[in-house]
């Protein structure tokens, strides 16, 4: 008898046998080319195809949006460098890098939220539960309290604080792979502790420092230029493909450890890797934009709505997150007489938006 794990794949017939049971999942199409086949999830591909142009349109709007009003032709000429120098400078040096940074922050938050929600099987599980936000805030607060100017420090303090906090969480929980739930609960304990330390520092600072840190802690993209956008892009270029690969495997979390092991997957290691990716992504995003509320929670939920219940919507969450941030950033610049930080817009409008989605039950799944 041949061991099935070592049997060469060519022993299997290349075309489906007549009368063979069709095992294609209901919402998928199988693409075949010679010996290669690819399972195409129709619904999530359609969702991505709808989301991508939405992101593009929102990006264009975000580049255009300003309190003074800028026409499409002005924006284009600024972009191409043919307009008057002022417009060119605004579009190329201020608006574009900022929108770019926002898109990446949104994508990172969306993916991180998707990974943590899938890991825990809990819609409330966002990266800030494992101490990401509080760790980043504590690092920034400590730096601001230490400096004489009360200025908020460099953006890379955020990811460092976030990763440090998450490392403490994982150490306290006794390993990231053990059980997703234990990590989350430990994370709440640890991040409450770290948050209290920042509170204590802040309550002894003067108004200036407290106000500066508060503005950062609301989440703002103001003044984010290429000096931030370029390293951010490099970090994401490394992390996002990994997250996509891991996200695909996370569908195996529906099985328990023994079944997964028989499929050749070490679920403990998979969980540990997914958690590490979520922390790194969220930490980077928090460092750049501050702890922007709600995107990591809402983007995966909306993406799941689009992609259907059987998928882990990593791509969809990234696109949804990017779209949410781009829209919020643009709105924040035109909606009020003073510029609103993006975090304020995401939380004020994100809430009703999510409710609106909730009030319309998904026809395909019948779930709220």
């Amino acid at each position, binding site marked *: 008898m041949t061991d099935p794990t070592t049997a060469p794949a060519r022993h299997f017939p290349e075309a489906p046998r007549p009368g063979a049971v069709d095992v294609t999942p209901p919402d998928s199409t199988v693409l075949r080319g010679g010996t290669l086949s690819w399972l195409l999830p129709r619904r999530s591909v359609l969702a991505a195809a709808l989301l991508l142009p939405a992101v593009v349109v929102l990006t264009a709007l975000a580049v255009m949006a300003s309190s003074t009003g800028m026409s499409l032709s002005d924006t284009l000429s600024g972009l191409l460098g043919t307009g008057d120098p002022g417009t060119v400078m605004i579009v190329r040096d201020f608006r574009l890098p900022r929108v770019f940074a926002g898109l990446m922050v949104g994508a990172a938050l969306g993916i991180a939220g998707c990974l943590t929600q899938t890991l825990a099987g809990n819609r409330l599980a966002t990266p800030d539960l494992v101490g990401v936000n509080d760790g980043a805030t504590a690092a920034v607060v400590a730096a601001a309290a230490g400096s004489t100017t009360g200025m908020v420090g460099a953006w890379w303090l955020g990811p460092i604080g976030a990763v440090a906090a998450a490392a403490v969480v994982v150490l306290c929980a006794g390993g990231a792979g053990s059980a997703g739930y234990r990590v989350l609960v430990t994370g709440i304990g640890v991040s409450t*502790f770290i948050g209290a330390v920042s509170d204590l520092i802040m309550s002894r600072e003067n108004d200036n420092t407290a106000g500066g840190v508060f503005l950062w802690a609301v989440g703002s993209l103001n003044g984010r230029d290429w000096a931030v956008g370029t390293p951010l892009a490099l970090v994401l270029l490394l992390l996002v493909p990994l997250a996509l690969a891991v996200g695909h495997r996370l569908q195996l979390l529906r099985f328990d450890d023994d079944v997964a092991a028989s499929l050749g997957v070490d679920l403990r290691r998979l969980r540990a890797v997914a958690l590490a990716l979520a922390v790194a992504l969220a930490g980077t995003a928090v460092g750049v934009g501050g702890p922007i509320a709600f995107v990591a929670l809402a983007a995966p939920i909306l993406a799941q709505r689009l992609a259907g219940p059987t998928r882990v919507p990593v791509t969809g969450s990234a696109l949804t997150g990017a779209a949410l941030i781009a829209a919020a950033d643009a709105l924040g610049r035109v909606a009020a007489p003073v510029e609103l930080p993006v975090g304020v817009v995401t939380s*004020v409008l994100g809430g009703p938006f999510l409710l609106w989605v909730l009030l319309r039950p998904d026809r395909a799944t019948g779930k709220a």
Partner: protein
Amino acid sequence: MSLAQGGRRRSAGSRPPEHPPPPGRSIHRATTGLLLLLVALVLLSLVIGTGGSPVGRAWDFLLGDPAARADAQIRLAVMDVRLPRTLAALLVGTCLGAAGCLLQAATRNPLAETGLLGVNSGAAFAVVVGLTSFGADSPGALLVWALAGGMAAGAVVLLFAGSGRTAGSPLRLVLAGSALGATFHGCTSYVLLGTSSTFDTYRYWTIGSLAGVEISDLVPLLPLAALGLLTALLCTRPLSALGLGDDGARSLGHHPGRIRLVVTGAVSLLAGCAVAVAGPIAFLGLLAPYAARALTGPRMTAQLVLSALIAADIMLLADILARIVIRPWETPVSVLLAFVGGPLLVWIARSSKLSTAGAEA
């Protein structure tokens, strides 16, 4: 909740289940222990504090020593300063513990805490509005604003969660709560960004402290808290039925959606009282039910009682520590709560009892 189930299966394998201890007796023992601790903490809370009143003198006052009774300074310290604080800590702790326990059971989500219903952020928004537009700056006025805002937010969340085809489903409650909570939070940030003077008062309110609470502030809250606790106790049976799943509960003649709405109503009442007195302390509502579940397992009434007791104990302990840690100054009670509760939660999460706790999800 696949992970939690996986954890349970593993730990069940490692510990042979042949001779489980009778759960009733350990629950009784835990209840008695927590009650005794509570009494001891109340006494400590009355005798410990600053203000030139030594512990022995306060103790004499409590025992009815005539010389101490005649001392106006000791009388002021014990009766007018420490007694209201002690009562406030008891009220806040009991309310948060009970509310958290109910909410986690109703939403079947062990990560749910009382802040989730939008009560905390609604209260914070109301406080900020009161500060900026209505010149409310006394602790009593802030308390009224916080209570009104918290209850209103809870009511709005309930309205949203209770409408539509899937009215009262756990996911709907949780999502409606976090969605509206985020909205209120954003509105608060918006107002605060414009006015730095408000921000200064707000940042002390939001840290939370029981200092300066007066009996007259607490009295109007008592009937509300009592109503909430009574509803909570009446809800334990239907909630246990919900533990069988919605279909199981229906077959026993319950209406799952309706139960959840009543329960969340009680939760917003209780959490509203707590946030009015002590500011937005969300953490205790998560910690206490977690600890209680580790002790009681799935028994709903025991869970509720123990959760309230544990929260009251922790709250009192944190408030006593807040007075003595950096004498003669006060530490914000929420900071101490986090210092006490954070490691405690980590410890519970690491103990073997977690498997029972997570399985509720």
